[in-house]
């Protein structure tokens, strides 16, 4: 009896001792994981000089379509690339009609009720309007062979995997560091 009371007290004590704050456990919010990958692409990707002509010393990350990141996309703003010399600036585009040149653009997988309802339509629109040296990242099956250079997906092992279309990247004068390419979660698209 005393034992049970003691046990209950311990459990209650633990409940009370902890206040609500951001949980930080091994199983992560995938929105954060995917937003973090965008950051790492900015660090490990290579772009030609003046990839975005009017960038004015900024590294521009675009989001095409509705925000799937739940706030984590905004957290990229102000982070730096090239050893702290270049600041990241974020831009949002409702549809590819609004698109302005970026270094890195993420195509939202979410449905929308404007003219571009799906990721496929967004990609098709973007391919017509893009600046040549933009790294296109998507999160929808099949896009890595339809013009996107990197496609995220969650595999059965519980990790975010990346399909990388290196040929497409190199065609646009871009590349990705071997450090990323040799990760076990990377699947090179032939």
């Amino acid at each position: 009896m005393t034992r049970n009371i003691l046990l209950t007290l311990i459990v209650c004590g633990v409940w009370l001792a902890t206040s609500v704050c951001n949980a930080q456990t091994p199983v992560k919010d995938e929105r954060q994981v995917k937003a973090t990958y965008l950051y790492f692409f900015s660090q490990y990707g290579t772009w030609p000089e003046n990839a975005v002509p009017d960038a004015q010393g900024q590294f521009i990350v675009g989001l095409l379509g509705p925000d799937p990141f739940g706030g984590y996309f905004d957290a990229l703003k102000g982070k730096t690339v090239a050893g702290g010399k270049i600041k990241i600036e974020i831009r949002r585009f409702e549809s590819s009609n609004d698109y302005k040149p970026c270094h890195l653009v993420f195509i939202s997988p979410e449905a929308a009720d404007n003219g571009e309802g799906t990721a496929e339509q967004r990609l098709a629109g973007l391919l017509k309007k893009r600046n040549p040296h933009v790294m296109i990242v998507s999160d929808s099956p099949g896009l890595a062979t339809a013009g996107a250079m990197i496609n995220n997906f969650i595999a059965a092992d519980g990790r975010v995997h990346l399909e990388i279309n290196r040929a497409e990247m190199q065609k646009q004068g871009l590349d990705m560091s071997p450090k990323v390419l040799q990760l076990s979660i990377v699947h090179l698209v032939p």
Partner: protein
Amino acid sequence: MARTAINTFCMARSLTMEYRIGATTFMAGSLLVAGALALCALPTPVRAEPPPFAYDSARERPFRTPAVTIRYQEPPPEVPANPADVEPPALELLDLSIEELSQTQVRVPALEQEVTTVSRQESTVGRSPVAVFVVTQEMIRRSGATSIPEVLRMVPGLQVVRIDSNKWSVTVRGFADRFFNRFLLVQIDGRAVYQVINSTVSWDAVDVMLEDVERIEVVRGPGATVWGANAVNGIINIITKRAADTQGGLISSGGGTEERGFTSFRYGGNNGSDLNYRVYGKWFDRDNGFNANGDAQDDWRAGRGGFRMDWTPTECDTITLQGEIFEVHSGRRDFLRPLTTGPDFFFTNTEDEITDGGHLLSRWSRDLGDDSGWSLQAYYDRFDRRSTNQIIDASIDTYDVDFQNHFQLGCNHKVVWGAGYRFYDLHFHPSGFDGGFHVNASDETVDLNRVSAFVQDEMTLRPDELFLTMGIKLSHNDFSNFEYQPTARLLWAPDEQQAAWASFSRAVRTPAYAEHFSRITGVAGPGTSFFTAFPNQEFDSEEMFAYELGYRAQPTDAFSWDLAMFYNKYDDLLVRRLTPVPLMPIVVLPTFPVTTFNGMDGETYGVELSGTLDVTDSWQLYGQYTFLRMQLHADNPVDAAAEAATEGLSPHNQVYLMSSWDMGCNWELDLIGRYVDILPQFVDVPSYIALDLRLGWYPSENLELSVVGQNLTDPHHPEFGSTGAGTLRSPTVELQRGVYGMLRYKW
């Protein structure tokens, strides 16, 4: 002459049986096929073509992105109307390296869990026409378990019994036993740890570094068609991580009351391009259990070290080399009594069993794309067990080579086939004496061979919806000669959220060396024979026909459940009988000759239900309920006692509940409650409820501190009683409450 007559008789008998079995199999197979065809004949609705996938066009939805449907469709509540107004959440993961980020786990829906055990190819739980359960690395970590059998307690349909500190019985769907867990096949990275001398798994010598386990796949029901004999009631496949996924260092160390101390260490590296490796070491020391009559003498100490290397010389080739050496000390105390009802501790045998051994495994896999590929595997395994007073002294050297190939045939057939050869080299050494205790006087070397081949085809009857899997395994062994083990399985997946399946299979447990060859004599004092276990070369395979039904569904993103039902019919089950033997040597004291027969048949049936509920993003509940009934019938009334003695070792009801809560501020709290029904065979083993509690804290990404309390509800309770063969008994040892603390650091 007489021998020829017996052989002829046996052949005739087995031929008749095979005919009968063949007919049943055929009928059941036909029924399934007929059912499937009837479903096929229904008009096919017009289905939208799934989008093409370049990387894996053969699979209907190769890498489905469950997360897209799960989280991205929810309106993200954190996004304010004007993002500039509110501070965005911090990207804490920026502190990680890209390698660490690539190891980060996000939650995978239950039906999307990867499994390879079912068909020896990558598939998912949702697409498996069997009762399969996957234990993930995260579940292992949060269970607070420190050994493989302890991890397995959460799996529905399993009965995990800690007989004493170092002895375990792990069984699926009945037939628990201390010495013979004979219907379950256990594999680690493709290497069988099923022990061939007496058909069991020596769990005290089976271990891996738990931190480096990718997942444990448990299939209930026969898996004999692709995995071979002895996968009668189930298979446990322990799959460790690839070397590329264990880069960097990890040390995990702790200790407590029952877990006196443990340390695991791993370091993984690479050559910068196509070769990854890891080396690891593990050591533990576990305390005695509780015995009412004094010291239980069952402490458990082990050390092991090993490596794994994965080399990918080309994009489609992977060459794996792994090896390990280990040494285990497991205490044991048994006693002989002159009568089966006599007082305990007449003669006791107390000693340490020392097991050492190791393995070296190499595998070459080639991925040919389009869902086809092959792999060639070869391994050597050594298991050498002796006891400090030489009561036990035997070793097993296993050489195994296995080839498998899978490919697409047309657009509706996925075929997998394979062949394997295994060679066992057994050595037995003369047994010593301990307190008048003596087991075996023979000094012999025995070679055993096993050849097998299998083929299995998964047919798509209706695209993306209805699948029929049929297969057969043919094998030959030295005891029961040719065996065939067929299966037919039907899966209906009306949508991505649910699937129903039905199956029929036949599986056999082939005889063990001990049943066919070895004469074991238990002697207490010079010239006195208390019992002799006689070999029986007529002993044939035990066989089973399994009928199974299952349904699993994920009605919402937060809830999934799985139901499996089975009816297993057994024939020629093993019975050990005390029989008068006509030509006994000079007998001074009463003798109890024990002989092994195929003397029982029976039915078992049961239901296994499990479910997972995400109450909130940070609180998850998991639960399972297992119901089992066994009804065995001895052929000869003389063996009637064996019916209850076997049935009474498995509980009718088991419940397991787990709550995992991320409390915030990097704290985790896990609570596990288990209920196990009585084991009717023992008067001193009541039903019990056990409670485990784990409190974990992450001061940083790389450091985890945790405190785990196990079996908290009482100071000690037994999970198993005193059992034995004839007059050999083992004491009832009780499991004690234990608390340990642990630190885990990664770099």
